[in-house]
């Protein structure tokens, strides 16, 4: 088997807010301001193989977007190793890193915010391949036309500005821009969340066609379990910066092992559930600035025991063939 397109090994990402001058001075006079440090991602290991579609699921603040940005090379990790095609990204020479980075492209949630409103669609798509010398500037029009056709838009749309497109068409332009540099992996960060369901279906179909035609791999980041179940082969569930479970999609949706995954699945509204009583997980999602000790989920977990508050569970192989980080899986909660 060839090396994974992207592998994260024990990667963490902190965001620090150092003390400002006023707070430092106040501390001299006996105040107790502390520098804030937020662990957005905590020792996450994850890989995506060529042609594989991996779904990354979690609620707000779980660090899924930060993982996506590190995979795409937009954000360096604080600790751990990100490797592309088996090579450590941090150790690569700058020129190699540029080329390797092209292989991983990102598609964002809000196409209006990620497309320059003053540039024509054609220019938006052409800028990266021309800059990186993949195509001479004189021939970029052909590349743009091909990219537009690939995502189901008319090549004549290249002359239009982003505001002249509908939401679904803008999403397609975002995809065309990513495809223009011939990536191997697309990181889709909530790419269909803002779309109406009928348009969302069109874009999901497009993603699946591209996977078939070009052999693209995806890291599909979403809070929507329905979307992920539909498109992904393997699902990774995150909670407050850590991976709590990962398994092949079918297994994860039929026999989830982690209590958080189980709760998520029970809570998803379903089309075939009629007038039912909604079951709920108690409590709020804790602040990532001040996460609970031990297993982050233990204050909300119906099965938690004393050990869960003390000890962080390790991500270990589980019965269902995936990995799960739960003390129920490694000797009990007491």
């Amino acid at each position, binding site marked *: 088997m060839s090396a994974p397109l992207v592998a994260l090994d024990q990667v963490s990402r902190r965001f620090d807010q150092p003390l400002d001058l006023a707070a430092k001075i106040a501390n001299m006079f006996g105040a107790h301001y502390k520098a804030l440090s937020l662990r957005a991602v905590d020792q996450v290991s994850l890989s995506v193989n060529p042609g594989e579609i991996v779904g990354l699921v979690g609620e707000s603040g779980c660090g899924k977007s930060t993982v996506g940005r590190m995979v795409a090379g937009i954000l360096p990790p604080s600790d751990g190793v990100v490797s592309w095609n088996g090579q450590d990204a941090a150790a690569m020479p700058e020129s190699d890193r540029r080329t390797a980075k092209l292989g991983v492209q990102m598609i964002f949630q809000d196409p209006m915010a990620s497309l320059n409103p003053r540039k024509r669609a054609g220019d938006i798509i052409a800028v990266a391949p021309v800059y990186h010398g993949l195509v001479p500037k004189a021939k970029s029009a052909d590349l743009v036309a091909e990219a537009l056709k690939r995502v189901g838009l008319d090549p004549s749309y290249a002359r239009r500005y982003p505001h002249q497109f509908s939401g679904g068409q803008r999403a397609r332009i975002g995809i065309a821009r990513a495809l223009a540099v011939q990536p191997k992996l697309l990181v889709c960060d909530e790419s269909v969340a803002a779309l109406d369901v009928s348009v969302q279906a069109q874009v*999901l179909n497009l993603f699946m066609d591209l996977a078939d035609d070009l052999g693209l791999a995806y890291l599909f980041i979403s809070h929507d379990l329905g979307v992920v179940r539909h498109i992904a082969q393997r699902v990774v569930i995150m909670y407050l910066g850590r991976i709590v479970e990962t398994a092949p999609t079918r297994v994860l949706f039929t026999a989830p092992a982690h209590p958080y995954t189980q709760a998520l699945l029970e809570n998803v509204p379903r089309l*075939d559930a009629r*007038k039912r009583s909604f079951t709920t997980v108690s409590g709020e999602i804790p602040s990532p600035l001040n996460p609970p000790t031990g297993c982050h989920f233990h204050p909300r977990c119906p099965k938690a025991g004393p050990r869960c508050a003390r000890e962080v569970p390790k991500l270990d192989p589980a019965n269902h063939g995936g990995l799960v980080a739960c003390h129920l899986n490694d000797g009990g909660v007491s």
Partner: protein
Amino acid sequence: MDAPVLNVEGLKTHFFTRAGVVKSVDGVSLQLAPGEILGLVGESGSGKSVTGFSILGLIDPPGRIVEGTVRLEGRDLTTLDDKAMSRVRGKDLAMIFQDPMMTLNPVLKISTQLIETVLAHAPVSKAEARQRAIAALAMVGIPSPEERIDAYPHQFSGGMRQRVAIATALLHRPKVIIADEPTTALDVTIQSQILAKMQELCREIGTAMIWITHDLSVVAGLADRVAVMYAGRIVETGPVGAVLDFPHHPYTQGLIGSVPSHAEPGARLAQIPGATPSLSALPDGCAFAPRCAKAIGLCRREAPQIEPLGMASVACHVAQGTGGLE
């Protein structure tokens, strides 16, 4: 069915803009029985929110209700003046918005805002109003409401803010609540908590509710009846089971086919081609006809009327069989 608590007949709300008349709501009729939950479903621009705003009399110029009646327990709200309407709004009729920060004033304490709402419609002392506000917060599941009531909106999380908005709406035990996508911005586990709470409270208080959403799956679990809107009109309505299990209208069928969790994983989703039409330049005939695979000549000439079909009501020539001779 009991006498409807809310009866909307032939409601038309148009916006008179420089670019032309936008027919956001174009002939909507719906009834709501006491204690009933109606899911009003549609995509962006289908007119579902404008329908909600029209019922509450919250349409600002250039928009105007040009036709139709909104009767709350027999009284036509469209004929009321501002003063009379503000006595109804917040008391018998309340609204919950998608973004609770739209409802809550960020510079006032929760207590100030809730007490103001109580005093607006009830002749009680300030101390009693505070007690009622605390009771309302407790009812929606906010822990230690006596202390939390003096917090500011930004000190609450998104889910908790939405609970405060719901508490505000429930203060006067309204006859009808209009909820406009109140859980769309929330995480799955928090959404589930809010849905459970709303269901429980509506049952307890006997409030009827219109739940406006783009998400068919939420409606499936929550509502008694569902109405599907497209381009300003209701295209199909009926009991949730009838509409979701045996949809007659091609648009409803398309919507259900587009929901990923409903389809076989990895299979192509049944997509509806094209995009929603501009409301200022609607086609003649059925607004869905240009996107509809089953459209016949009649669909492009004449707009279908909504008529009973089986357990539901549908506005579609093909489903009604009126195009049989073509």
